């Protein structure tokens, strides 16, 4: 049997050799930690503390403000210094709770207490995950309690761990699969306990043989958990691609994985679920890859959320030369930063510094209709036609061309020989169409 995969995709330079052999290093923050209230998909959280309040490790400082929203907990003990907008990785300002660290790391009551998930009801588990503020740590930051709460628990056939880590350069999920394998499998078992008919699948790209071996050893005795080896190809870890590769099922942009009987969680998310449920520890840490050819040293680090990227960079060893581009996340979907004094959030995955910016190297030229974008698109779209529509702000045509099925993976832009900034144009059109749809829905609701 061949390796599981999907149609389309690309093979960019992986760059994983820079950091894949570096064991996870724990770093501690300095005096000031920043907790943006909007670090997940959905409505930002509302601060539940006031300036001057004393807070403890694991204490809730932001409360979910809607169904699709998530709690935010403090990763240190100390005093709330300010509640004000602060720069975030995406370049936007977000209302943030700023805490002065007292370096005592005094936990809230009950923090770290061991629990047996088998003694908990499904509802209790879901509430724990919600209270702990667990969100999807693969990048999108979708609140996990929503993901694990489908309409019908019996309709879920598969719980899938996304261990593809298809973004170039990133190795933190790989290190976690090697170093915290038990916790990851533990998280999977917790989620499986919610769904009576579900089987567990751990999807890992074949470029991580050590991880595949380690995880296989650990699940050898489990009849309802299996490892699915995936072809190394970007965007293999895209949710729709992963579900298709591991189960043969397809979903589109209007569906959730649960609509195809699947629940998908990233490696770090699974570990966070385990820690929340079995170790009474909310989501307050993040594992990141610090890498790139502009770095003196590369590393995989584990930090408390709220710590500044700048502190991480200094601890790891700083820049070798002035980078041309600094990215939060991977090179395909990460956000370029103009200032690295921004906090690590639950959705952060990497600090990548590159000496060469391949975007600036090329000026876009005329499309020659070569069709490379068509071959690369995992969503089976015609990016060339979508770009024509996007460039003339023709949202109607863009929608007809199924532009809303694009998930902005960037594959088309990567392969384009004319170096057209396709994904950038699609982001704009997609946002515009989504806004129009919301406005239409709101107008309809008013009537």
């Amino acid at each position, binding site marked *: 049997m061949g390796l599981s995969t999907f149609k389309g995709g690309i093979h960019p330079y992986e760059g994983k050799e820079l950091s894949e052999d570096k064991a996870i290093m724990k770093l501690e923050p300095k005096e000031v930690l920043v907790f943006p209230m909007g670090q997940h998909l959905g409505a930002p959280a509302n601060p539940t503390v006031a300036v001057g309040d004393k807070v403890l490790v694991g204490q809730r400082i932001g409360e979910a403000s809607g169904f699709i929203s998530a709690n935010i907990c403090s990763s240190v003990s100390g005093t709330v210094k300010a509640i004000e907008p602060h720069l975030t990785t995406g370049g936007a300002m977000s209302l943030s709770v700023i805490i002065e660290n007292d370096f005592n790391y005094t936990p809230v009551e009950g923090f770290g207490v061991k629990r047996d998930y088998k003694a908990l009801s499904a509802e209790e588990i879901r509430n724990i995950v919600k209270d702990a503020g667990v969100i999807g740590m693969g990048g999108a930051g979708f609140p996990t309690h929503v993901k694990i709460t489908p309409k019908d628990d019996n309709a879920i056939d598969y719980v899938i761990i996304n261990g593809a880590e298809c973004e170039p350069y990133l190795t933190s999920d790989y290190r976690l699969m090697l170093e915290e394998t038990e916790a990851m499998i533990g998280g999977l078992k917790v989620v499986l306990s919610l769904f009576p008919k579900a089987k567990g699948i751990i999807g890992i790209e074949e470029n991580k043989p050590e991880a595949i071996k380690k995880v296989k050893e650990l699940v050898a005795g489990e009849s309802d958990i299996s490892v699915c080896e995936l072809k190394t190809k970007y965007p293999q870890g895209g949710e729709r691609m992963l579900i298709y590769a591991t189960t043969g099922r397809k979903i589109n942009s209007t569906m959730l994985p649960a609509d195809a009987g699947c629940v998908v969680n990233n490696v770090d998310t699974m570990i966070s679920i385990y820690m929340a449920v079995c170790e009474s520890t909310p989501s307050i840490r993040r594992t990141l890859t610090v890498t790139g050819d502009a770095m003196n040293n590369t590393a995989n680090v584990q930090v408390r959320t709220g710590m500044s990227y700048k502190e991480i960079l200094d601890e790891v060893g700083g820049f070798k030369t002035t980078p041309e581009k*600094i990215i939060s996340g991977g090179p395909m979907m990460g956000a370029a930063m103009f200032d690295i004094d921004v906090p690590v959030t639950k959705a952060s995955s990497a600090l990548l510094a590159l000496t060469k*910016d391949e*975007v600036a190297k090329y000026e876009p030229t005329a499309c*020659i209709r070569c069709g490379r974008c068509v071959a690369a698109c995992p969503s089976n779209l015609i990016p060339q036609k979508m770009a024509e529509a996007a460039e003339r702000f023709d949202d109607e045509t863009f929608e007809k061309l199924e532009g809303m099925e694009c998930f902005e993976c960037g594959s088309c832009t990567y392969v384009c020989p004319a170096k057209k900034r396709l*994904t950038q144009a699609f982001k704009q059109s997609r946002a515009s169409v989504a806004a129009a749809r919301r406005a239409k829905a709101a107008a309809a609701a008013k009537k």
Partner: protein
Amino acid sequence: MNVSAAPHVRSKDTTSSIMRDVAIALAPTLIFGIWNFNRYGYGLNAFLLIVICVVFCVGTEFIYEKLMKKPNTIGDLSAVVTGLILALNLPATLPLWIAALGSIFAILVVKMVYGGLGQNFMNPALGARCFLVISFAARMTAFPAEFPGVSVGVDTVATATPLTALKAGATVDVFKMFIGTTSGTIGETSVVAVLIGAIYLVARKVISLRIPVTFIVTTLVFVELFGGHMGDMNYLLAHLCGGGLVVGAFFMATDYVTSPITPMGQIVFGIIIGILTGIFRLFGGSAEGVSYAIIITNLLVPLIERFTMPKAFGKEAVKK
């Protein structure tokens, strides 16, 4: 420090690297053409035609952009490729000034006035070839003597290509046609030289086999069914090796700008060109029809694309 939207990495392929690959792939065909027609005393003229076509194609683009105050795009090498393809469509005996005129027509009329690279609806080299065939019919079919016994009756200089001879009822040497030591345009005679270039293009992933294979197979099926020589292998192979079918399929029908971008559309496109080529060859006035079949089908591309849009991933999925 730079800030831009994701993705932050790019593949090494550029328009000019692709065009360079096409030019490299055309080299065996053109070199063979020079050698082949040198046997008839037209080697130097064939070489000069190639040079003239490239120089005038690039020069026309350069001057047009200068005059129109547009950015200079000759670096993308697409005009070089147009020049090379036009050259391989010309007889080795052609006066140089006609090649120069054809080059100017290809770039100015077929490409630049429609907006330059990517905007032309017709293959510039083939558009120019057809313009020249209409304007200078005798000169454009003045192939060096190969089948002196068969008269095509246009001009005393004109002699038949293998395919014209075949149409007139003569027997042709298919092996010679495969190797290319026959008469015709500079680049159409050698199937083996074309295939060397084609293998290079496929290996470099510059072209896919969808268009060339459907085009060639359709033509052969059509000829087999309607050619009146059912079961005659020599006749079928002569149609495969003659009349620029292979060079047209791999180097002209695959032109990105003037072929469909949808995978299914490329298959439809190949089939339509194949049928038209068959009709032109069997029922048309001339023995050949590849060029016209391609440029006519070029015009159908927007329509073909409209009806061959792929279904987006997961679009058929229904909620459980």
